[in-house]
């Protein structure tokens, strides 16, 4: 192609990339919710788990501790911080122990007669009121008088205090300076975020908001604020992973560039060979943008890793160029093999699409689009741009020597058998569980953080994140009624120390039936006035003192019953709303448990309810989810394997040749698995993903080594290309293997081992090369 034509092609290609880039930047919406990388739930428990993991009341709690020089300062800071956060839209609840009447919205105050259980057993008649007033006189002469002096005119029966007692956390920390303090002298706060717990970006935003509010307080100097809770952990894990991945990525990119420069000694070739990869990445993202409303951050991270396979295409072209030969001609010779490689990689990634997990589907769309674009641009665009004259790698002395050594290697027929036998033995002898079912094991947190969380959770009486009591009924009111029904049994369990505390929805809001019954027992204004006058006789209370009480009771008589929707306007209603979930036209109530000591007793309670009440073990549900997920991926992989065998056999038009390609690949894959098992590694989903990537690379090696051109120089070029590919893969993934984060280590170790085994086995098991 003439120079002018090449220039135009280059400009046009770059222009298309720029357009794609502009489109992607404009339209790309990145989501960070980790749940789109979890399998879609199938059982009701699993579905509940997925919701709870992200949005359940427990997962949205941030536990805050303020440490500082003086208790007085900490108390003030706690109050000021709570006041600042109350005003912020990002937080649905802020608790620091200072219970005041504002917990019950002033507009809702008359509702106390419908919410408090007093009227279940008493009526507001003269004897009851007399008894209450006499008790209040005793209260006024007792040391605690100041606690209720302000309340008395409006609430002589102290319903507000009864509700406060009912709503106070079952096990609350010590109050000092009017706010919660831990035994270690830290001021404690609990903040519930609106953002989902497993959305690291939204949580990071919520945490930053708290930090800023704290830093803006006038006397925060000398005091420090620290965090705990699921949301904070997801932020820590995401930051750690991102930090290490970026650092490793930078180092391996530099290494990769140096390697390619050493191998081809041409900056021009290096830059041009980056074009197919850039096109692949941009086209992949564009496809995602077109097909999905949001693209997951992890899809992009993993996707770029998996696109590493595509880097092989230009490398193969560069290594296989002959002196004086047109690049277009070189590519034409390579194309059938390259096409087979592209097609088989695409088939392997189709397995991800079949897994049914939205994140993995995105990953499949991204990589398959990317591989096709990289492959076809390497075939039809790149060769026209490459310089006409290049240095042929074939005559390089070290390569000649290397090829000779490789060819001289003994290739006894029993090698595959021995390797297979060793693999089976190692798999059989490996100790410990085969699969890693615990999702948490993949996002490790420093031990101190977990200990601190346990300590804060214990001090605050915050709910256990593992167990939930599920109450199911056809309607919302049905759930509340069911909750009222089991309340006595639950109280008995708490008394027996089977569990420290249980929080049921009816604790915050009685069912309408109960509210109606209480409302109907409220006397008319005249009746109450009369009863009160009779009760007050001979007592020193001032005349007319209880007018606010009479007004509130009168108001309560005609109040519309308090529904969860109406209640939701207040902070406590928010808490209730989080405990009531609609599902397929039925309603679920979520009872949180703190300090579970006797699971069997709770199961017994659930069992006795005849299915209306269930004890959900979130850990069990999570593990069953992972097992389902794996089974699905394994099935998809099996199907992909069958397709792969067919595709390769058709492409090579020979079962024998297909065997030479597929046998080393399969054997190496199982060998990686066996070695990891013997080393005590439990296999997680990330190991499976990495095994597939390694198998894709191994397939390339086997395909190219199997090719018998009858030309020794061409065989040397194949070795050169494969060596460059193997070294670059080892460089990138070997770096990941050193990471301290299990997800990255799993991928790095598996791919590095895989690349090494695939390379060795495909050389040793290749049909014997002819001697020069």
């Amino acid at each position, binding site marked *: 192609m003439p120079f002018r034509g090449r220039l135009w092609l280059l400009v046009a290609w770059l222009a298309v990339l720029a357009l794609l880039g502009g489109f992607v930047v404009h339209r790309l919406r990145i989501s960070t919710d980790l749940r789109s990388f979890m399998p879609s739930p199938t059982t009701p428990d699993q579905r509940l788990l997925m919701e709870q993991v992200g949005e359940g009341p427990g997962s949205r709690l941030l536990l805050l501790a303020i440490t500082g020089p003086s208790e007085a300062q900490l108390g003030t800071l706690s109050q000021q911080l709570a006041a600042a956060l109350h005003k912020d839209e990002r937080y649905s609840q802020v608790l620091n122990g200072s219970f005041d009447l504002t917990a019950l919205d002033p507009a809702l105050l008359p509702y106390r007669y419908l919410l408090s259980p007093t009227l279940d057993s008493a009526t507001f008649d003269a004897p009851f009121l007399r008894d209450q007033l006499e008790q209040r*006189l*005793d209260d*006024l*002469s*007792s*040391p*605690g*008088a*100041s*606690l209720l*002096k302000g309340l*008395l*005119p409006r609430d002589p029966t102290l319903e507000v205090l009864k509700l406060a007692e009912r709503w106070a956390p079952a096990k609350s920390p*010590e*109050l*000092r*300076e*009017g706010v919660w303090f831990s035994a270690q002298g830290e001021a404690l706060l609990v903040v519930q975020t609106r953002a989902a717990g497993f959305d690291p970006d939204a949580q990071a935003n919520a945490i930053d908001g708290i930090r800023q509010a704290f830093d803006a307080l006038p006397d925060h100097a000398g005091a420090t604020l620290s965090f705990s809770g699921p949301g904070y952990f997801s932020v820590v894990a995401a930051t750690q992973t991102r930090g290490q991945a970026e650092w490793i990525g930078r180092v391996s990119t530099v290494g990769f560039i140096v390697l390619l420069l050493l191998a081809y000694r041409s900056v021009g070739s290096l830059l041009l060979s980056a074009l197919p990869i850039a096109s692949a990445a941009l086209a992949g993202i564009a496809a995602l943008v077109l097909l999905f409303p949001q693209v997951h951050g992890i899809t992009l991270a993993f996707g770029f890793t998996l696109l590493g396979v595509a880097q092989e295409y230009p490398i193969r072209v560069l290594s296989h160029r002959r002196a004086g030969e047109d690049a277009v001609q070189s590519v034409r010779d390579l194309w059938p093999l390259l096409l087979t490689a592209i097609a088989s990689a695409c088939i392997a990634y189709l397995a991800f699409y079949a897994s049914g997990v939205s994140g993995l589907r995105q990953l499949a769309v991204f990589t398959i689009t990317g591989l096709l674009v990289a492959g076809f641009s390497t075939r039809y665009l790149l060769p026209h741009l490459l310089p006409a004259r290049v240095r042929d790698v074939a005559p390089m002395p070290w390569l000649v020597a290397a090829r000779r050594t490789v060819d001289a290697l003994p290739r006894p027929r029993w090698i595959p058998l021995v390797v297979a036998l060793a693999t089976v033995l190692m798999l059989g002898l490996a100790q410990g569980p085969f699969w890693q079912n615990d999702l948490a094991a993949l996002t490790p947190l420093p031990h101190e953080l977990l200990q601190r969380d346990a300590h804060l959770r214990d001090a605050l009486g915050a709910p256990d994140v593992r167990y939930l009591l599920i109450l199911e009924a056809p309607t919302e009111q049905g759930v509340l009624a069911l909750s009222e029904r089991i309340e006595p049994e639950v109280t008995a369990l708490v008394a027996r120390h089977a569990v420290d505390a249980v929080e049921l929805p009816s604790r915050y809001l009685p069912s309408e039936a109960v509210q109606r019954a209480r409302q109907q027992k409220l006397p008319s204004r005249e009746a109450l006035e009369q009863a009160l006058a009779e009760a007050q006789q001979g007592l*020193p*209370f*001032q005349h007319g*003192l209880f007018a606010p009480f009479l007004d509130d009771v009168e108001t309560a008589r005609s109040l519309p019953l308090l529904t969860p929707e109406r209640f939701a306007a207040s902070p406590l209603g928010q808490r209730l709303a989080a405990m009531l979930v609609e599902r397929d036209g039925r309603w679920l109530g979520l009872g949180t448990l703190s300090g579970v000591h006797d699971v069997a007793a709770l199961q017994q309670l659930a069992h006795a309810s005849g299915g209306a009440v269930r004890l959900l073990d979130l850990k069990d549900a999570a593990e069953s989810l992972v097992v389902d997920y794996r089974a699905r991926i394994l099935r998809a992989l099996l199907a992909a394997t069958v397709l792969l065998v067919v595709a390769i056999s058709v492409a090579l038009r020979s079962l024998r040749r297909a065997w030479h390609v597929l046998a080393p690949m399969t054997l190496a894959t199982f060998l990686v698995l066996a070695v990891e098992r013997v080393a005590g590694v439990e296999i997680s989903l990330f190991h499976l993903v990495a095994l597939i990537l390694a198998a894709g690379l191994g397939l390339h090696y086997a395909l190219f080594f199997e090719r018998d051109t009858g030309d020794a120089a061409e065989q040397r070029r194949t070795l050169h290309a494969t060596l460059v590919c193997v070294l670059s893969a080892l460089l990138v993934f070997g770096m990941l293997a050193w990471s301290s984060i299990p997800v990255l280590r799993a991928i790095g170790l598996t791919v590095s081992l895989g690349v090494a085994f695939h390379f060795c086995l495909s050389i040793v098991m290749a049909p014997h090369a002819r001697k020069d």
Partner: protein
Amino acid sequence: MLLCSLTLSLCANASAPEDAVTARSVVASLGRPAPARTPFAEARFMKMLDQPLVVSGQLSWLGDDRLERAVDHPNREVSTIADGQVTQQREGRPPRSFSLKRAPQLQLLLDSFVALLGGDSTRLEQAFTIQYHGDDARRWTLALTPRDPTLAHTVSRIEIDGRGTEPRCMRMQEADGDLAVDLLGELSGKMPAAPTRDGLAALCQGG
């Protein structure tokens, strides 16, 4: 002398350094070994009541920060302050308890009472600014103002009247105008049937 006792605060201010020393020696002289018990009668004047509430019983310092207030009349009730927790027990009802931090009056009562009975003037000075008025060591008044601004918000002033080494009277003036007067020791038997603020003040300061 008469002039001086009429303008008590003026005298106190005029001779502050010596009075601080005297106050310390008075407080030190009040100290006695725990447990120390004294009968008391209390009248509480409150805005929301037509008449004061009157109760009587026994106050006991049990050592350290433990105080017991046992009411015998009109209804039996025992309140105990121990380990930062207040527990109230009434006949025929389950005991109730709450944190001392929620009841600032109690905190002040504890601070002043324990310091007085322990003869611990340092502790007293930590919690309060002290003004001492007295003609001689036989007859004196300590006026205590809480140093903690939040506590001062509820209780503006505590006055303790005494004679020799005996505290006789404790008046707690609340910021909202309510007043509690405790007659201690032998004076506790002299609570009038219908007490008034002025009558009790005269009783405390007078003979």
